[in-house]
C-alpha cells in the first residue's frame, strides 16, 4: 500500500467505515462491538462539547470581550462571579446547597421563558388557526381551492374532536352497571383512534425516511471509500 495514500481523509474514512460496521453489527443483537462504538461516540461527543464550550462561550463571550472592551466589565464580571460561584458550589456535594439559589434563578428564568414562548408562540396561534379553518377569505389569499379548503377544514375539525374524545376517560357512576363513558363519546373515540393511527403511521414513515436517508449516506460514503479498491477500474 502506498503510504502517500494515507491522507487524513482516508484515515478518517477508514475509521468511519470500521465504526459503521460495528454499529451495523446490532443486526445480530446487542454485542460488545456495538456497545464499544456507542461508548466511543458518547465520550468523543462529551469531549468535543467541552472544547466547544470553552472556546465558544468562555473565551468568546467572557474573556475576549473583557480584554478588548474593559468598559463592559461591569456587565460581565457579575455574570463571571455568579458562574464561578455556581461552579464551585456544585462541584462539592457539601456546598451544593449554597448554589441552589442561583440554580433556582436559572431554572425559574428558563421556565418562565419556555412557558411564555409556549403560550404566545404555540397555544394562541394554533387555537387561532383552528378557528380559521373555514375562513374562505384565507383560502382566496392562499390561492387554494375553496372545496379543498373546506374539506381540509372539516377533516381537521373532525380529527381534533374525535381525538379529544378518544382521550376522554371520564365516566359517570351508575348503579349495577359498569363504569363506562357514554356511547356517543365512545363512538367518537373510535373515530379519533383512526386519526391517531394515521398520525402514528406518518410519524413512523418520517422516521423511516430519515433513517433510510442516513443509511444511504453511510453506504454512499463506504462505497466512495472502498469502491476504488473493490471494484475493477
Amino acid at each position, binding site marked *: 500500500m502506498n503510504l502517500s495514500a494515507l491522507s487524513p481523509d482516508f484515515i478518517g474514512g477508514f475509521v468511519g467505515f470500521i465504526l459503521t460496521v460495528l454499529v*451495523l453489527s446490532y*443486526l*445480530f*443483537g446487542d454485542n460488545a462491538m456495538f456497545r464499544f462504538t456507542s461508548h466511543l461516540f458518547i465520550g468523543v*461527543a462529551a469531549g*468535543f*462539547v467541552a472544547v*466547544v*464550550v470553552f*472556546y*465558544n*462561550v468562555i*473565551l*468568546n*463571550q467572557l474573556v*475576549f*470581550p473583557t480584554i*478588548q472592551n474593559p468598559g463592559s466589565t461591569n456587565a460581565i464580571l457579575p455574570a463571571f462571579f455568579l458562574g464561578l460561584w455556581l461552579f464551585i458550589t456544585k462541584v462539592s456535594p457539601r456546598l451544593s446547597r449554597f448554589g441552589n439559589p442561583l440554580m433556582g434563578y436559572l431554572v425559574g*428564568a*428558563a421556565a418562565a*421563558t*419556555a412557558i411564555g*414562548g*409556549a403560550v*404566545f*408562540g*404555540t397555544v394562541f*396561534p*394554533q387555537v*387561532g*388557526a383552528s378557528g*380559521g379553518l373555514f*375562513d374562505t377569505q*384565507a383560502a382566496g389569499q*392562499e390561492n387554494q381551492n375553496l372545496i379543498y379548503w373546506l374539506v381540509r377544514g372539516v377533516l381537521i375539525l373532525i380529527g381534533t374532536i374525535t381525538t379529544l374524545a378518544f382521550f376522554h376517560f371520564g365516566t359517570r357512576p351508575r348503579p349495577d352497571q359498569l363504569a363506562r363513558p357514554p356511547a356517543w363519546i365512545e363512538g367518537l373515540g373510535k373515530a379519533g383512534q383512526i386519526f391517531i393511527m394515521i*398520525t402514528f403511521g*406518518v*410519524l413512523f*414513515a*418520517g*422516521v*423511516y*425516511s*430519515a433513517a*433510510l*436517508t*442516513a*443509511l*444511504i*449516506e*453511510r*453506504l*454512499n460514503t463506504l*462505497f466512495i471509500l472502498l469502491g476504488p479498491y473493490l471494484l475493477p477500474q
Partner: protein
Amino acid sequence: MADIRCPMCGKNNPAGTEVCKYCQARIKPLVVNPLDGDGGSGQPGKSSQPNNTPDHESSLPDWLRDLRQRDDEPAPDPTEKMPEWMQDEPQVPGFSSDGDAPDWLSRIRKQEDAPEESEAESDFSAPEKDDSQDFLAAEEKPGQDLPDWLSQLGSSEPESKPEAAWDQPDEEPAPAPAEEGDQPDWLQRIRSRQKEETPPDAFLFSSEDEEPSAQAAEATEAGETPDWLSSFQTPEPAPAEKADSLPDWLNQQAGPSPFSEPVNEGEEEVPDWLSPKAESGPFSQPVSESEEGVPDWLSKFGGQEAGAAAFAAPEETDETKPAFGEEENLPDWLTRLDSSATEGPRSGSVPALILDEEDLSETPEPDKSSIETPDLSSVPDWLSQVPADEAASGAAAGDSEAGLAPAELPSWLEAMRPVESAAPLVGSPEDTSGPAEKAGPLAGLRGVLPAEPEFVNLRKPQVYSIKLQVSEAQQAHIALLDSLLETEAAAKPVQGKPALMSQQLLRLGIAVVLILAVLTALFLNQQQLPLPANPPPEVQNVSTLINSLAENAPVLVAFDYEPGLSGELDATSSAVIQHLTARNAYLTLVSTSPNGPLLAERLITHILPQQGLTVTNYTNLGFISGGPTGLLALAENPKKVLPYSLNGVMVWEGLPLSGVQSVADFAMVMVITENPETARAWIEQVQPFLQEKNTPMVMVVSAQAEPMVRPYYETSPRQISGMVAGLPGAAAYEKVTGRTGITRHYWDAYGAGILVAVVIILAGSLINFVLAGFAHPKPAEAEGTL
C-alpha cells in the same frame, strides 16, 4: 422495768435507752406507737416457736406466759365434751364459753338480745345472726385480762349509736348489720386470709356462716356459760397457736399491748393517744351520746367524708364494734392506715395487711408466694390477736371478703420488720426442723437461714417437650403450602437461546434486502427515478423567499441538528445552502447545539465543495448557550450574545452585519434541525421578533420532524414561511431550483429503499392476514372472548 432488747443485735440494754449501746441501732422508734412493740408478724402460716429462754419468759406478760403454759398441755378434742345436741347441730366453732367473760362482754350480749330497744342497737346488734358471739368469743381470751377501762367498753356501747355519727354522715340511720359482710373490710380480709391459711382441723373459735344453735343463744342471753362450753373453752388451743404464729422477735420485742397488759400496770406503757382517756379507757368512750362527747380527733375524723366513706360499712356487724371499742376511738395511725387502704395501694408502699386477689393484682408483687402470704406486720399487736384467734378457729367463712386495700407500714415498723415478711419466705412451715437462731433480730426463728447456700439446690430446669401436636389435616395443609413455596422458590432453568431465532432471521433478511437495494442503486447511479413533479407549496415558498433576497443579504442559518442525522440533513440543507450561495447571501451560522458549529463547518468546507460549490460568504458565530433563554437573548440582541465568531473576529462591526441590531434585521432566518422541540423553540422565542419587520423564517427539517413542524406552517398567518422536509423535500427543492446535488445522487437509492419497505409491509400484511384466516382459536381463547 426490764431491759430492752436491741432489735438489731439482740443484746439487752438498760430501760429507757433509745439507742443500742452495742450496735448504735435505734431502739425506741422515732414515731411513738400507741401499741409499743408491735410489729410482729401474725401470719398464721409462719412457723415460729416461742423462745423459751428465761430472758424471754421474764419479758413476756403474764397472760402470754399462761397461754404458753396451756400450749404445752395437749389439746383436748372438743367434740368429746360436746353435748349431744351440739354434736347433732352444726358446729359453732367460734362459740366459746363466757364464763370468764368480763362484765362489758356480758353487757354487750344483753344489748344484743334486745336489738329493737334502741336505734343504736340496730347498728351494733345482729338480731338474726350471732356472729357477734363468735367475735366476742374470740375476744374472750384477751378479755379475761382486760383492764377495767376496757371492760367499760361493753357497757358504753349499747347506750350509744356511734355508727350513726360517722358511718352515716347524712344523719341517716345505718342499716342493721346482720351479715358477715358488715364487718370492716380490713377485718374481713384478715379473716378470709386466715381461713385460707388455717388448717381445717384447727380449733375454731368463730363461725360466721353458721347460725348458732338455740341453746347457745339462750346461754349467751343468760350470760352464763354452760358446762360443755366451759370445757369447750378450757383447752384453748388458739392462744398456743397464736403464740406459735408470732415470731420470736415479736415475742421479744412486742411490748405490752392494750389488750395484753392492764393499764394499771404502768402508765408509761400507755400511748399518748390513750393517756387522756386512761380513766375511762379509750374503748369505753361513749361516742354516740352527743357531739360534745366526741373527742377532737374523732370530730375531725367524723368531719372528713372520705374517712367516713372509708369506714362506712352499711352492713357492718355489731361484733366488730364492741370488740374494738368504737372505730372512732381508733388511733390515728390505724385510721390513716385504713383510709390509705381505701385509696388503693401507692407505688412504693409496702403492703402490710392481707391482700386480696384483686389488690394483689394492682400491687407490684412479682412473687406469688408473697402474695398468698399475708403480711400482718403492720397490724398492731392487739389487732393481730383477733385474726390470729379467728384463724386458729379455722372457721370457714362463707362469703369472700373483698375490697381490702394495702396500707403502708410506719417507718419504724418497717425498720423492725423481719426479712421474712418482706422477702420471699425462706422458711416454710416445713422448715421448722431447722436450727433456731440464737442472736440477732432473727433470734428464736427456726429455719429462717438455710443450712446450705441456695445455689446448691440449683439445677437445670426441666426440659419440656416443645413438639407440636399436629393433626393429619394440618400436616396435609403444611405439605401443600410447602410444595407451593418450593415451586416458587425453585429457580426455573433458563432455556437456551438458539443461535438464530426466527425474529433475528427476519431482521437480517430485511436488512440484507434493504442494503442490497440501496447499494445497487448507488452502484448503478442511473438516476432513473424522477424527482417530484409537483413540489409542495412550502418548498416553493422557500425557493421564492430565497430568490427574493438581495445580494449579500444577511441570512441567519441555525445548524441545530445532531451528527446522527447529519446524513439526511446535510443532503437536505445542501440544496438550500446551494441556492443561498447562488444568491450570494451572507450566511451567519449559529447553533444551539454544541455540535452544530462543527457540522456547519463540515458542510460548508467539505460536503459542498465535493458538489463543486465553494462557499466563502459566511461567518460561523458558534454555539448559543442557554437553550430557549439563549434564543430569546439572541432575538433581542444578537451582538451581545455572540460577539465573536469561531475565529475570534468581531464580525458585527463589518458588513453586512453592521446594520443588524436585532434578529429581525436579518433578511431571512433559516433553521436546520431534526428535532421538533428545537424547531418549536425557535418558533416560540425568535419568530415573534421577526414579525416587526416581517422577516421570514423557513425550516429545513428532517422527515421525522415534519409532522410536528407542519402545523406552524399551516396556521394563518403562517408562523414559518416555508419548509423543506427530508430528502423528498430536498428533491422537490432541486426540482424547483433546477439544480442537482447530493439529493439527486441519493434519490434512486431512496426510492429503492422505500420500495423495499413497501413490499415488505405488504408482504407481511398479506402473510399475517392469511395466517389469521387459517388459524383456529383455542378453546380457552374462544371462551375468553365470549
